């Protein structure tokens, strides 16, 4: 369980990234923070592994204030996936995945064996392990990023726009893969994105942020779509866009969903 208790962050230059933010992320749930750039969502994420320390307020993990833990040890116990993978370009794919267990003192051989299993787990052929990151496609690199984050078997997974840099089709595949993995593993996932569709697809709970990480609305995707809290949320989730408002028609005994422009988009079963 991750708890943000009234955290704020003011950077040295005087810019406020986060103003008085509170949130509880229950264990084994996927919570997605969604907001445009400048909403402070990455800052929030980085508070959890102390890449950023809040100016005021506390972050608790399983009830413990993390400011009292050693940052380095804390980070080794939390999986982190970032945009563009952030893979170490001078280490092979296998060594990238094996890095954190080795930092934790697992022997190289053991860590590598485990890494091979993880590659398979995220849908990569073990043969790719010998390659360097630049020899993989963008989608493959992101899978390695996920495998690396899982390597130390952390309870918590932080994901910072992990699929932002790949094309839409691959993004979709990676999202499905994450849903499958989460069904198996049941991690506590805090996920950051600016893509509303991605948030709705992945989240048990969506948190829509405006500037300075002020919570505009939180809840299940369907709740937010059905009852946007205000105009900001309505515009942000595109509730009044034609693609989101569907009407139904009866065609040959079946119910066809049609968007506002009259284009059929699906069939209700």
């Amino acid at each position: 369980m991750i708890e943000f208790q009234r955290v704020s962050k003011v950077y040295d230059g005087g810019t406020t990234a986060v103003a008085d933010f509170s949130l509880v992320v229950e264990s084994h749930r996927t919570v997605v923070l969604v907001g445009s750039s400048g909403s402070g969502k990455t800052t929030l994420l980085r508070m959890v592994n102390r890449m950023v320390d809040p100016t005021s307020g506390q972050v608790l993990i399983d009830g413990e204030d993390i400011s009292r833990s050693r940052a380095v040890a804390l980070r080794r116990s939390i999986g982190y996936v970032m945009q563009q993978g952030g893979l170490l370009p001078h280490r092979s794919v296998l060594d990238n995945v094996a890095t954190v267990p080795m930092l934790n003192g697992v022997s190289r051989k053991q860590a590598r064996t485990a890494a091979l299993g993880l590659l398979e787990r995220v849908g990569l052929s073990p043969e790719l392990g010998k390659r360097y990151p630049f020899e993989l496609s963008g989608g493959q690199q992101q899978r390695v990023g996920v495998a690396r984050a899982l390597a130390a078997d952390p309870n918590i997974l932080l994901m910072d726009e992990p699929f932002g840099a790949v094309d839409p089709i691959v993004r979709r595949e990676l999202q499905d893969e994450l849903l499958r993995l989460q069904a198996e593993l049941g991690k506590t996932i805090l996920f950051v994105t600016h893509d509303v569709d991605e948030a709705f697809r992945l989240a048990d709970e969506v948190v829509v942020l405006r500037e300075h990480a002020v919570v505009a609305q939180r809840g299940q995707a369907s709740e937010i779509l059905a009852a946007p809290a205000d105009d900001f949320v309505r515009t942000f989730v595109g509730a009044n866009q034609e693609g989101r408002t569907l009407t139904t028609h009866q065609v040959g005994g079946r119910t066809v969903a049609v968007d506002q422009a009259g284009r059929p988009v699906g069939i209700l079963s």
Partner: protein
Amino acid sequence: MKWLRNNWQEIPGLVANHVTLSIPAIVFSVIIAVPIGRLAHKRRLIGGPVLGIASLLYAIPSLPLIIAILVLTGLSARSMWTMTIALTVYGVALLVRTSADAFAAVDKNVHDAAVAMGHSGMSVFWRVDLPLAVPVLVSGIRVMTVSTVSLVTVGALVGQSGLGWLLTNGFQRGIAAEVATGVIATALLAVILDGLVMVAGRLLTPWTVRRHRRGKPARVTRRSRGALA
């Protein structure tokens, strides 16, 4: 050529002396310049003045610097340290900027990822930042190595041994072949040491070597983009 036939036995000794003067200065320059460059990159406020001082130091002409070191330190003109100090000053001045550039060239994302995985400060430096800075560092060390080997010859003017002796001795005795031998031998030595540094760099960075070999497009640098267009 007649001169070379009669005097070639002198050359190995001169080469050995030349190398003895060059290598310590090259090594000291790397040891001193890399941390300064890293500091200049990390702390911008210090970085500007540091790089300014480096370019001023590099502007000092070699012979006056050697003489100033001689007179001010009281070292003997024949002492190896006179040259080592002078060459190290130039080496550091030349390498500090490249070192700062080398650390700046490390992908911020990768650095952050290493921190997020739980590398400690020193561990990030030794295992991530420094290895990733090596390709740019090596290019700077190569330039510095060549310039150091060439500068050692100036020491001959104050009585230091090395291939420069062929230049001064040949000039005083009016033997062009001796001077030409000195020029060519110095240039060859520079090219050889440059090649050794290059090979060492390749061995230290296997991930870039494979990139060359497979001919895959590496990250497009500004230079290569220009050349392609």
